[in-house]
């Protein structure tokens, strides 16, 4: 703490002067009381001044720390905009609609990556939302009290595992399962949808979606739990008193009231999924192609940056990657703000509560 650097100014003795008798050494004798009073007035004034200086110094220091936060975001924006200028000048808006990605000849279009990011996140939401909402509903409304803490702790632990470990697990455990059993099954029974064509590699959009789903379940379920908890208790009691079964009570009194917040939680999960890098990079297959099949390998915005940035040889290539980063930055910010607003509409006005 920077303010601790200036402790030599005698504020400690000054504080004592203000509150009680002065130190015995300078205890005023009756005959010198007049002089001492003058002195002490002067000292008090000096003391006041030193406190004000210190106080404003401390406040200034803390303000600087707060401004650091603004500065960081400002630097991020500046850095991304400046870094992507070259690609922006060359390709303009077309950058986001071109599907050619050829670092050798210098043609860059980000569409395959945008497609991959969006599709893998949607697959993840499709899998994660029912699971996460079910966990939240189960924990807050249904499950016996002793089970609540362990289950919510378990979902929180899922959030603590680093992305790269999910990737490792997905590569060596999830992908073989997908390749050998899940994907052949999907190809057999859901081929008519056209989403499950082609050879079952294991790695691909589906694998990325599944691992992303596991990663975003904790955030969706913990925020859903928060918004479920703030639904007023009398509302539940009213529904039950009218003869509703527990599920009817949950559906009509709880979920309906919390739906904006749950939607917010889902969008927050989406924001998390969009920017997720390592786990996805390890299982999506890293092939910049737009395929209809979810079993085909894809590529995402985050993983192309991770894979190619260090190897980028031309300035244009690097600049194109930074532009993808800028796009990712903007999209996640918009998504997060939207989600924050939706959660806020439900939880506003209620004090933060710890969930039992």
């Amino acid at each position, binding site marked *: 703490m920077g303010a601790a650097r200036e402790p030599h100014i005698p504020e400690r003795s000054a504080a004592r002067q203000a509150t009680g008798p002065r130190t015995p050494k300078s205890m005023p004798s009756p005959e010198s009381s007049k002089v001492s009073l003058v002195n002490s007035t002067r000292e008090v004034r000096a003391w006041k001044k030193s406190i004000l200086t210190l106080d404003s110094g401390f406040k200034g220091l803390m303000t600087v720390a707060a401004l650091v936060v603004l500065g960081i975001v400002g630097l991020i924006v500046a850095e991304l905009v400046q870094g992507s200028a070259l690609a922006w000048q060359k390709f303009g808006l077309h950058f986001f609609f071109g599907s050619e990605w050829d670092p050798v000849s210098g043609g860059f279009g980000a569409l395959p990556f945008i497609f991959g990011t969006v599709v893998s996140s949607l697959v993840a939401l499709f899998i994660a939302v029912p699971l996460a909402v079910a966990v939240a509903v189960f924990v807050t409304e249904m499950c016996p009290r002793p089970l609540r803490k362990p289950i919510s702790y378990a979902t929180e632990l899922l959030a603590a595992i680093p992305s*790269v470990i999910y990737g490792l697990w997905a590569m060596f455990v999830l992908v073989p399962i997908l390749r050998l059993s899940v994907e052949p099954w999907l190809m057999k029974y859901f081929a008519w949808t056209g989403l499950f064509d082609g050879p079952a590699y294991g790695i691909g959009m589906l694998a990325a979606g599944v691992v992303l789903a596991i990663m975003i379940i904790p955030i969706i379920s913990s925020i859903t739990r928060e918004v479920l908890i703030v639904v007023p208790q009398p509302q539940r009691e009213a529904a039950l008193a009218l003869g509703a079964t527990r599920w009817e009570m949950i559906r009509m009194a709880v979920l309906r009231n919390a739906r904006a917040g749950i939607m917010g939680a889902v969008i927050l999960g989406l924001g998390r999924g969009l920017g997720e890098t390592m786990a996805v990079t390890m299982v999506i297959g890293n092939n910049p192609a737009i395929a209809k099949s979810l079993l085909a390998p894809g590529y995402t915005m985050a993983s192309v940056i991770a894979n190619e940035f260090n190897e980028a040889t031309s300035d244009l290539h690097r600049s194109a990657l930074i532009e993808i980063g800028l796009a990712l930055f903007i999209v996640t910010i918009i998504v997060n703000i939207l989600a924050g607003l939706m959660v806020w509409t439900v939880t506003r006005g209620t004090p933060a509560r710890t969930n039992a």
Partner: protein
Amino acid sequence: MPKRQISLHRQMTDYFFTGLAASLSVVVVCTLIAIFAYLVLKGAGSLNWSFLTQTPKPVGEIGGGMANALVGSIMILGIATLFGVPAGIGAGIYLAEYGRNRLGQLVRFTSDVLNGVPSIVIGLVAYGLVVIPQRHFSAFAGGVALAIMMVPTVARTTEEMLLLVPHAVREAAFGLGIPQWRTTISITLATARAGIITGVMLAFARVAGETAPLMFTAFGNQFWSYSAREPIAALPLQIFTYAITPYDDWHRQAWAGALMLVILIVGTTTLVRFVFMRRMLGGAR
């Protein structure tokens, strides 16, 4: 008591959805158990003394370890904590004690934005800010990237924890003639200490497993390095590098590294949960 007049259909629907929610919860918990089981199963066998003391062996040679990555991770995290925590706590103090104004709102909003920025983007920015001017990858650059990620978490928890301290405590301090800065440091901060340490450790645990921001900053290193100005190995980076190679022995080591990283992170968060959280809630509420 009269017999409940609930139709069979409604009763069945209720049972169905209760069962559904319960079984989906079981699925989620089982996924967690599966992940941990695999980590322990595959990692524990390789987590031995040489893993903890040796540097990576060249491709093809069996053995070696991640000792340098462990040291590298500690260095990077140390640098990150050194920069990130004071800035975060300072911003948190500002928000809690002085932040009821336009600037406070802006900072609060900005730190939430920063919290949502994908880690890979932070890596790109740290590359532009530190690596390019220095003209080489370094542990310092990695530390800066992680520090940026720590700031918003630390700031917001510090703010929350300081706001939990009753206002009467501050007023009592002012009444004794203690200046505001001193009140904040010795009384408010001290009261909220457990909560703030919790926040710091959670932020630490969160960035400890980050890989993406280190790829273009710390870069990784197969050898020992103790310098903040050199490229340096880090545990998550090493796990990633090993995982995507085709060598079985490296896969084995990646699992061991992963186990170690998880023990570190889950250990931190669990410790925080059971030691500090209890004290904090007991003390401040």
